[in-house]
């Protein structure tokens, strides 16, 4: 182990051997040729003035940033996957100021659905969890991590980004193909077996999507459903965040049940805000929101579990009718009896 303080006086050869990503730091500054026999200090001393100008750093700042880069990347490599076992929601008040009598612990591996009328505060609850609210949001809720008040550094530090979010408004904006995009993401996570993970995510995304896509499809050409499917597969397999918040992804033409199962299998706590009956019943627990407060917590019963299949069938029938109309079909007796009969 090279001691951090005097890393700057080690030869680059040694540093590059130990921290393979160290070269990226120089490349990102436009410095492609590195003399391995020099120490970081001496190397910084020899860098051309024009190069420094373009990098926007002087020699001293370059060394400081280089050392910070190494320690930050090391911190990043340490997985934050197992740092969260549970979160606890401690009630605040609803929109009328009435106390919300809640003390609810949610564990990793659970699926929680959130239901309630439009404007009732479902997205607000997800937002409270996302920012680990400490009675500092309009709801005055407090969120605990592993039963404790999260320390301030955990709240701020990016290495410990605890929450991944998926919502209907989110789109891919990068001008890349599916595989290039996954490669970038994998590199930023410093994953070793990049080809394998690309393959896994693409095939997983395809299992979830209605229509198939291949790894050379440009991201921006994916349909809404395909984008959502890829986002879920990527979040499950590449994102470190142990908590996943999903805000209204229904109607996206994806295999919802498989998608949720995939996330749970990866040891994540999944919260879904939804108006969709099938998704609502996928929660082990269902939080009912009214006037900005959690008004009821319902545990999924055996009876409800049994009815999910039937709801899914009805849902599929409605979907078929939609496709039928979309492709120029008309509604007739046969279609209606197919819908109402069993």
């Amino acid at each position: 182990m090279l001691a951090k303080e005097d890393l700057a006086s080690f030869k680059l050869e040694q540093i590059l051997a130990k921290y393979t990503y160290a070269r990226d730091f120089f490349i990102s500054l436009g410095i492609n040729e590195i003399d391995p026999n020099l120490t970081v200090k001496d190397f910084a001393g020899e860098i051309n003035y024009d190069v420094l100008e373009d990098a926007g750093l002087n020699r001293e700042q370059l060394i400081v940033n280089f050392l910070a880069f190494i320690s930050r990347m090391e911190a990043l490599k340490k997985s934050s996957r197992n740092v969260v076992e549970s979160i606890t929601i401690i009630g605040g008040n609803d929109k009328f100021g009435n106390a919300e009598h809640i003390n609810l612990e949610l564990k990793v591996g659970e699926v929680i659905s959130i239901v309630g009328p439009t404007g009732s505060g479902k997205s607000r609850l997800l937002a409270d969890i996302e920012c680990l609210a400490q009675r500092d949001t309009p709801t005055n809720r407090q969120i605990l991590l592993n039963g404790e008040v999260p320390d301030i550094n955990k709240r701020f530090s990016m290495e410990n980004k605890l929450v991944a979010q998926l919502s209907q408004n989110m789109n891919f904006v990068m001008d890349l193909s599916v595989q290039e995009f996954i490669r970038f993401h994998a590199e930023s996570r410093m994953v070793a077996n990049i080809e394998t993970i690309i393959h896994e995510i693409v095939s997983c995304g395809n299992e979830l999507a209605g229509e198939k896509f291949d790894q050379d499809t440009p991201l921006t050409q994916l349909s809404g459903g395909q984008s959502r499917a890829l986002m879920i597969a990527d979040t499950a397999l590449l994102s470190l965040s142990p908590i996943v918040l999903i805000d209204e992804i229904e109607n996206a033409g994806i295999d919802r049940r498989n998608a949720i199962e995939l996330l749970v299998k990866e040891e994540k706590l999944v919260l879904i805000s939804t108006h969709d009956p099938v998704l609502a019943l996928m929660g082990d627990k269902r939080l009912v929101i009214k006037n900005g407060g959690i008004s009821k917590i319902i545990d999924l019963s055996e009876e409800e579990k049994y009815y999910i299949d039937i709801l899914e069938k009805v849902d599929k029938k409605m979907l078929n009718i939609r496709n039928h109309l979309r492709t120029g079909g008309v509604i007739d007796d046969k279609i209606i009896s197919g819908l109402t009969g069993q």
Partner: protein
Amino acid sequence: MKIITVSGPPSSGKTSVIIKAIEYLKKDNLEIGVIKFDSLSTYDDVLYKKIGVKVKVGLSGNICPDHYYMTNIEDCVKWGMSENLDMLISESAGLCNRCSPHIRDVLAICVVDNLSGINTPKKIGPMLRLADIVVITKGDIVSQAEREVFAFRVKQSNPRASIIFINGITGQGAYDLSLHLKEANEYESVTDKKLRFSMPAAVCSYCTGDIRIGDKYQTGNIRKIKL
């Protein structure tokens, strides 16, 4: 008086983020002033006035806005002191990626947005590389993976900075920023303080008003493209 410099590319969300953070600070009854630097015009002062903070606008016209900033910051701080402000925030659009308004020991914030493309953190220069806090906005409209890749690129460019994710529209994340603002160093004057990075020497013949094309007219600090 606490002094904070906020910079970032145009439309990255600077005004939105500052306003959301100020809304939290107002709960502490702080007297806050904003100096808005821009090149030709701005409507930001209207937005700032609306939330009840004191605001002054400086338009740089035909000079680099950051050079203009540097020659005026001392007076701006004097103004802030005379208004008895608890906090003075400067907002300047980094139009020239090479200059940056960040001053040593004065809390320096750079605002970048997720839509600007993953190569942006590399391109911005000292404005991003030497900031203490990098705020990343517009995460609400891109995928989780793109947020993660973008943040990684920011970390590569500025490994020292704290990164704060803020939604400029809902204000999500702005509370965290407001806590950082409260920790900013206090100064009564910035006279004799130093920039974190030099601003490029504007001393070629075109700086001094020449408009003719051709080698023979070019004098001073000149760099030629390698073709």
